[in-house]
């Protein structure tokens, strides 16, 4: 039983990492929309974030998996899960980025523009490196939460850890053992993440040396 359940860990991790990656990239667009100069863009961004955050992830999962199938878009459970969590992650990570941006000196952006730096370079070489230290602890913490949310994928049939534990519980009747195992697995997975979060937190407190 242990082996069967723990094999699901690969999928748990896969879902978590894929969703996080998608969210990390799209989150940039979300943060950009929220801080755009045009008020309409900001408004749409704000509405998008509010709506996504105000509805439980499970509901979005069902909307994507069951609902979109109706209008012709049939996704496998795995695709639906990664898509849904990716969108949700982009909203939360986008807000984390926005918080980091607030600490950034506006002058940096002006100086870069004056030098003629394009937007992509501005983003990757000036903004991202500087706010990375500030936001990385929150990002890791969010990642830990995302891993726990990945358990929801079991409800639409993704055969990850929680799904397998549920299966085992129902077929062998040893529910306590099955869920204790999977619970311990989540706890064990969170240990390296916790250590990573602490390291990120310590590094974020180091001050830049300015000459």
């Amino acid at each position, binding site marked *: 039983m242990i082996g069967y359940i723990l094999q699901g860990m690969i999928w748990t991790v896969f879902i978590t990492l894929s969703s996080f990656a998608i969210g990390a990239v799209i989150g940039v667009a979300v943060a950009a929309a929220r801080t755009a100069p045009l008020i309409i863009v900001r408004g749409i961004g704000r509405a998008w974030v509010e709506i996504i955050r105000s*509805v439980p992830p499970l509901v979005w999962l*069902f909307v994507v998996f069951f609902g979109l199938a109706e209008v012709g878009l049939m996704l496998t459970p795995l695709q639906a899960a990664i898509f849904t969590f990716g969108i949700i992650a982009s909203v939360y990570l986008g807000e984390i980025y926005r918080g980091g941006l607030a600490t950034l000196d506006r002058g940096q952006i002006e100086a870069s523009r004056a030098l003629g730096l394009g937007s992509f370079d501005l983003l990757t070489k000036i903004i991202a490196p500087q706010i990375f230290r500030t936001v990385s602890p929150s990002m890791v913490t969010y990642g830990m939460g995302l891993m726990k949310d990945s358990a929801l994928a079991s409800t639409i049939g993704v055969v990850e850890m929680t799904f397998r*534990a549920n299966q085992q519980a129902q077929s062998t009747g040893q529910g*306590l053992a099955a869920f204790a195992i999977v619970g311990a697995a989540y706890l064990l997975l969170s240990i390296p993440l916790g250590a990573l979060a602490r390291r990120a937190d310590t590094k974020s407190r180091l001050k830049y040396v300015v000459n």
Partner: protein
Amino acid sequence: MDIQTWFGYVFELLPGLVTAMQLTGMSLALGFPLALAFALLIDIAPRPLNWVVIAVVEVGRGVPLLVLLYIFYQGLPQIDIVPSAMVAAVAAFTWSTASYATETIRSSIQSVPRGQLEAASAAGLSGIDSFRFVIMPQAARIAIPPLMGLAIIMFQLSSLAYVITISEVMQSAYFLGTKTFNYLPVFLAAAAVYASITIPASALVTSIERRLARHV
């Protein structure tokens, strides 16, 4: 899909909303006091006891709520304890609430400036009195916005209770979907039901946060 039918769906989900709010309410009513006890025990209780509390909190925070639900509903029967769905749900949600709230309460207590405790001690106030009259009131002001935020999150998470057959919003929505085969509008109706509570509630928390910040 006309608007009237859609509102019909929303209406059918409302009883589930009541159940969801009852579940959330009970979990908060049990979870918050428990969290206060945990927070105090972690700092005050002697060695073996305080490790037990820390373990309870870490498990409650580190294990997905879905798994906690399953543990109570499908796990306990293995050792011949068979709770009803509602009891299992309240137990799992209370554990989760208490675990997250404990951290919030602990950090709120730590946020009260040290000088306050010194002034209270210097005046001869006992430890208990210092805590009761000086530290707790100030810690409470700090803790209220994040705890309210936690309450809203717990309300959203009540959607998970459907997996152990609680008839809240998701359960009703799922049945409605299988009946009508109009999954998309039905689940969007469910989304609307949640959002209609969550969005005003969040706005309320923000305004309370602003008012509390003015006083101190």
